[in-house]
């Protein structure tokens, strides 16, 4: 029975992943902001076959509360095989350009809260001598683009942080997985116009579960984003600044 902590458990991508694990009889600890919605997801996962589902409501912007939350989760599960971090938000880029406050909030929830909680998770996994830390970054972090660079720069911070953490935890047998989805059709992107390159939360979840099983380091979901982002990263800055992306 796998022991899995999910932070940001009300995210559509996290929920779809949790269903795969519930189906296999995992023990789950769910952390999300909205108490009614976390409780509803917990009830659903129990019916779908999870062995144990415990949950709590927590605003992840409250960094000081992270330690006690992790203590409760560790106690409930008896350690962690997998920690999935999936919370996040996507503000309108224009609005972030006009409001320092909004831009800071965007960085705080998408980047700083992730660093805060990972900093506390890392020694726990390393002391266990194994386990997986899987974190939702994004292809948006691979290169700042005018259409979403505030969000993107927060994700870039997460990706860089995880790359260093991976080196640090490698010798203790901990897998650090950076997950970089392309656009996914979830509540976060409800306001955006969808196109053919969009993925479903179910297919992204399947990729996450697979990436963990295969002990991968960095995954792009769907996989075609890897070559695309390789090209996007390769465009010289002098040219890049002239194109609309």
């Amino acid at each position, binding site marked *: 029975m796998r022991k899995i902590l999910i932070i940001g458990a009300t995210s559509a991508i996290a929920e779809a992943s949790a269903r795969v694990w519930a189906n296999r009889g995992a023990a789950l600890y769910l952390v999300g902001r909205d108490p009614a919605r976390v409780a509803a*997801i917990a*009830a659903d996962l129990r*019916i779908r076959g999870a062995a144990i589902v415990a949950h709590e409501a927590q605003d992840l912007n409250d960094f000081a509360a992270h330690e006690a939350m992790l203590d409760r989760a560790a106690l409930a599960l008896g350690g962690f095989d997998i920690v999935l971090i999936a919370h996040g938000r996507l503000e309108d880029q224009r609005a972030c350009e006009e409001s320092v406050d909004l831009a800071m909030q965007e960085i705080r929830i998408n980047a700083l809260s992730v660093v805060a909680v990972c900093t506390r998770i890392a020694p726990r996994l390393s002391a266990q001598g194994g386990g997986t830390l899987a974190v939702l970054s994004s292809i948006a972090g691979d290169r700042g683009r005018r259409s979403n660079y505030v969000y993107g720069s927060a994700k870039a911070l997460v990706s860089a942080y995880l790359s260093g953490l991976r080196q640090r935890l490698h010798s203790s047998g901990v897998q650090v997985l950076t997950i970089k989805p392309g656009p996914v059709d979830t509540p976060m992107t409800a306001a955006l*116009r969808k196109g053919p390159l969009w993925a479903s939360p179910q297919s992204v979840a399947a990729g996450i579960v697979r990436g963990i099983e295969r002990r991968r380091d960095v995954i792009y979901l769907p996989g075609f984003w890897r070559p695309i982002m390789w090209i996007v990263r390769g465009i010289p800055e002098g040219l890049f600044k002239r194109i609309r992306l």
Partner: protein
Amino acid sequence: MARGQPRLVCSWGNVARGTHSVYRLSSRFEDFPSLPAHTSILPFGNGRSYGDSCLNVGGALLDMRSMDRFIHFDAQRGTLRCEAGVQLGEILRIVAPAGWLPCVLPGTQYVTVGGAIANDVHGKNHHRDGSFGCHVTQFELLRSNGERLLCSPQTNSDALAATIGGLGLTGVITWAELQLTRVAGPWMAVESVRCRDLGELLALTSASSQSHAYTVAWVDCAARRKRLGRGILQRANPADDGGAARPAASRRWLAVPFTPPVSMLNPAMTRVFNALHYTRHSAPMRSIQHYQQFFFPLDGIRHWNRLYGPRGFYQYQCAVPRDGAGDSIRRLLEATAASGEGSSLAVLKFFGERPSPGLLSFPRPGVTLALDFPNRGARLERLFARLDAIVAEAGGRLYPAKDARMPASLFRAGYPQWQTFSRFVDARCSSSFWQRVMADA
């Protein structure tokens, strides 16, 4: 702020289609979406309705498929509460291993609970257990004004009667509670019996209604004169002996990967197919089948509707009252055979006495006949007009879930409670079907 996604949506028959602005509800805690002024909306289940009753062309659709959480399953009492976007196949995966099945299952498992309620669907056991709505113990209805009504036979029973079979027009069902039925295991003892003509088919179906929980008859539509109405009756009861080695659950093993340029199911082919199918069953055949195979034989082929080509297909499903049913069915089959249109699939079932709870529920005591036809334009519509006349004369009705063309007059004659119903229609809800049958009402 969520926005509607412009999308081309078509229903199962591929004849009704059009651009919609698609919104989504992802959980029962969300509010009714706020819409631009003068835009109407229709809840959308899994699009397994054949015609335009699940579409609202030019308006908005509210996609319910990601609102699909289980809420409570009582494995002792067999009650299940879930959000309305959960599909029946998902329910089966959870409840069947615990020894329960939904009381009523239509011919495909890819329908949502909300869709099953809004069409008050029926199964092969209507003669015994009534329609889907008979086993819905309560549900929540979310109206566009934000009101949430808990509906049960005890509370808001008028809204309950309007919403069961209410074609999505009374608001959004957010969650529902179902009473399930006990089964000893996943197996069905199935028997197929060949009948030489309509008289024999109806007599045997009627007799089997007493002895068997499930009955359904396949009719050879190409047969005429003395053989008119010949077919194969399939009847079944749950098999209660476990233990023995059984065939595995059927899996989806075939798919129609794309729509061929023309229909693969033309009249000549269906004539041959029908004759072969009839001949194959010369002696009664008994078998033990997994419930998947028994309830959902068509689900074995993914996207089978594509076989009808880009012009799509129609299903004509009517119900005629018990008195005089034999005569009406005979006339319907005669008209079909005489037209040379070649129905590719014809299915006949008995509807029992148990009253359907909805004001617009389709099932009523009598006989129902469903005929599939590739879309061949005006010629087919001429046949439909003849069939309509027979149904109207018999005091029967057509099934909105399957319909893309019935005249408004036939709808109003078949559903005399439509005026009572229309008082419950939500101010922001509409559908292509509703606009069609309410034109100049």
